[in-house]
């Protein structure tokens, strides 16, 4: 206000100055004036009339956060619906040879036949338990070598005996070559100086390993014998046939990629996330929608009817509102239970709808009360409009914006609730994945295999964040009260 008056007086003074000084104006003659053509005055400054929704859409488009969120939500929807068409791995298939694998590309592996049973090399030349006094001068076992083909299925080691040894210790290291101070992780202690071989099958990956072996007799020998090997990725034929039934030993086959890794049962995480998205987003969309519909019905009736009906409906709403939400979600989830083989999705939907219709009922009632006595509704009533017409033509369209905003905020909180319940084991039953239950599975191994927890957690957070930001944007775009402020 203050600003505009000063601006006005400024132009005034400038105008006065030009009146006095400017010689051009003094030189004007009558010929300088002519009648303006009609065409000029016909030009009108106008913009196409905007409907409420068009205007809201324009406003929303200007909100960068909201539009990005809308994109993310669209992406998630495509991910959920079209994802399984593009990514055809079975989310329920358990590949027990690839448990808790971090994200991997497709890899080519050798199919091995059924392994020959490992024949331990027992020497008859050296005693199993020599005299103890040899401990002080114990030498390293000689010539560590690998027999057969070292693969990720097995590595067979063999060495020549050390005089006076009563046993051997085998080490494995993933880092550099073993030195005096670090040999690696001890993977086996072999009792008996005449046992000269070991088969390593534990948790092998297709990479370079260093093996070392020391002799022991009470104490370990200071010297060691070491070998370096790079393992070829391999799969046993029995496991290979679970993926491709016609796999033959000796051939190579390609194992499927797991872009997001596998879970604790070797199931593909990406495929499971897609299936879990269906559950999480289904609950996230349907529960608020149903609750909103009940809320509109009860709130609409309450506001429209007024009087005693209004009073009792609102008392009921107050009581349901007084129930602590998450506490009673848990209670109802227990009460409605899930029979054997059921996923428990419908029980969760039911519990969520029973507890969450109150907000929208109050909202709609307030809106209806406000609109019922507004001038345009009174005018319409005066013109003889029936109550159905009033409801459909005036009340509902005018509350739609507020309803839409509160629906957008109800979706993330439903996703949140589903995740919370599934996380404490009260959500959907185990074979059906949901983002929350995947988090619950993943957190058990979070410290060793963080990807199993982080990916579903990321999806939950992203979905909730996107809906929250979109809700903010929609509120700014749709709420007329906000406009006058801006």
């Amino acid at each position, binding site marked *: 206000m203050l600003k505009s008056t000063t601006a006005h007086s400024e132009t005034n003074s400038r105008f006065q100055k030009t009146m006095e000084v400017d010689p051009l104006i003094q030189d004007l003659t009558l010929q300088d004036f002519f009648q303006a053509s009609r065409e000029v005055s016909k030009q009108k400054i106008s913009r196409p009339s905007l409907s409420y929704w068009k205007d809201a859409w324009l406003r929303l488009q200007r909100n960068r956060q909201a539009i990005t969120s809308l994109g993310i939500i669209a992406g998630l929807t495509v991910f959920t619906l079209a994802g399984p068409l593009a990514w055809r791995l079975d989310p329920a298939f358990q590949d027990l040879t690839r448990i808790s694998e971090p994200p991997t590309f497709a890899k080519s592996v050798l199919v091995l036949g059924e392994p020959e049973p490992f024949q331990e090399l027992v020497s008859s030349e050296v005693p199993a338990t020599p005299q103890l006094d040899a401990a002080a001068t114990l030498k390293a076992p000689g010539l560590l070598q690998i027999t057969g083909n070292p693969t990720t299925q097995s590595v067979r080691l063999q060495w020549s005996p050390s005089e006076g040894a009563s046993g051997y210790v085998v080490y494995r290291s993933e880092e550099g070559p073993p030195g005096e101070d670090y040999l690696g992780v001890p993977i086996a202690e072999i009792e008996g100086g005449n046992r000269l071989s070991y088969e390593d099958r534990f948790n092998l990956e297709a990479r370079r390993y260093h093996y070392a072996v020391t002799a022991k007799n009470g104490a370990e020998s200071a010297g060691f014998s070491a070998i370096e090997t790079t393992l070829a990725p391999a799969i046993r034929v029995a496991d290979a046939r679970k993926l491709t039934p016609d796999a033959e030993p000796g051939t190579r086959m390609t194992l499927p990629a797991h872009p997001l890794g596998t879970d604790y049962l070797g199931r593909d995480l990406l495929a499971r996330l897609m299936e879990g998205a269906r559950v999480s987003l289904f609950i996230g969309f349907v529960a608020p929608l149903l609750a909103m519909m009940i809320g509109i019905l009860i709130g609409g009736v309450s506001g429209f009817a007024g009087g005693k009906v209004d009073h009792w409906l609102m008392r009921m709403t107050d*009581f349901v509102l007084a*129930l602590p939400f*998450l506490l*009673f979600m848990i209670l109802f989830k227990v009460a409605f239970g899930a029979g054997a083989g059921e996923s428990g999705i419908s029980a969760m939907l039911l519990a969520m709808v029973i507890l969450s219709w109150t907000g929208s009922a109050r909202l709609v009632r307030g809106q209806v009360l406000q609109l019922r006595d507004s001038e345009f509704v009174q005018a319409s009533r005066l013109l003889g409009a029936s109550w159905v017409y009033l409801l459909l033509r005036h009340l509902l369209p005018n509350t739609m914006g507020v309803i839409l905003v509160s629906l957008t905020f109800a979706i*993330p909180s439903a996703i949140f609730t589903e995740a919370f319940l599934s996380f*404490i084991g009260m959500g959907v039953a185990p074979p059906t994945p949901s983002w929350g239950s995947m988090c619950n599975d993943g957190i058990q191994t979070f410290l060793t295999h963080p990807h199993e927890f982080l990916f579903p957690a990321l999806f939950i*957070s992203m979905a909730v964040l996107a809906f929250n930001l979109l809700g903010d944007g929609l509120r700014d775009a749709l709420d007329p009260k906000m406009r006058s402020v801006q």
Partner: protein
Amino acid sequence: MLKYILTRLLSGILTVYFIATVTFAAMHLVPGDPITGNKATSPEIRANLERKYGLDRPVLVQYGIYLKNMVNGDFGISFTQQNRSVNDIIRSHFPISATLGIASILFATFGGIFFGALTGISRKKIYDRSIMFGVILAISVPSFVFAAVSQFFMTELNQKAGTTLLPVGGWGGLSHMILPAIVLGLGTLAFLTRLMRSSLLEVVNQDYIRTARAKGLSPTRIFFSHQLRNAVLPVITVLGPAIAAITTGGFVVESVFAIPGLGRYFVQAVQQLDYTVIMGLTVFYGAFLVFMVITVDIAYGLIDPRIKVSARSA
């Protein structure tokens, strides 16, 4: 004011009664009953057990017994833990949850007021923007994610430092409380920050602020004794729901951090379908939350002089 307090208390008692009734009804909806276990019981034993626990009586009589027990403060006996009554469980584990809850509500309230004030008064847009984005993030990310991630990073930090800077689980001294209290309070802190910001922005344009400025008060004085004092009041009103959020949030956080609080016991009871414990704890939690909300409302009425007028008219 006295009348207001009495009305609130009465409605609170009514609400607790309603909660108890819904809980009872919900637990009776559960298919099967606690006696039907893994082992087959003969009909005679079954009948004896039913008589012992009153399960052979009509539902309404059972309901009456249940209400009487609740009024006497008897929440029942655990079905899965031997010789453990729900009262016992509450007595030994609620103090732990309460301690953690108080710590995190303090963190959330003071943090929320601080950050809200910071966004409300800072002239630089970048502060406002980044804090508000953090707020949205904290509201959107579930607490179990924060719990797990903070545990992960703390473990790494502890390993880097070579000592235990902060324990990542269990319960003991003050140091055990820091990480879970922060995680538990984070969502509420974000919520309060947002509220504080908008209420401060509303206060800034009030006439009395202009008057104070016209009087020549220093900006600090205006901020602390006029803006902050008035803006903080709405924050107090939502402390009731905030306490509810932190209480239920405790279910997850206590489980992740292995804190032997009541929330963790509740979750365990739910997972083991220990019906009497679920029932007892639900009513206990419900009553606790209802009366916390009432306490906050009354406290608000006492603090804010403006509320008295509306209370009288209500």
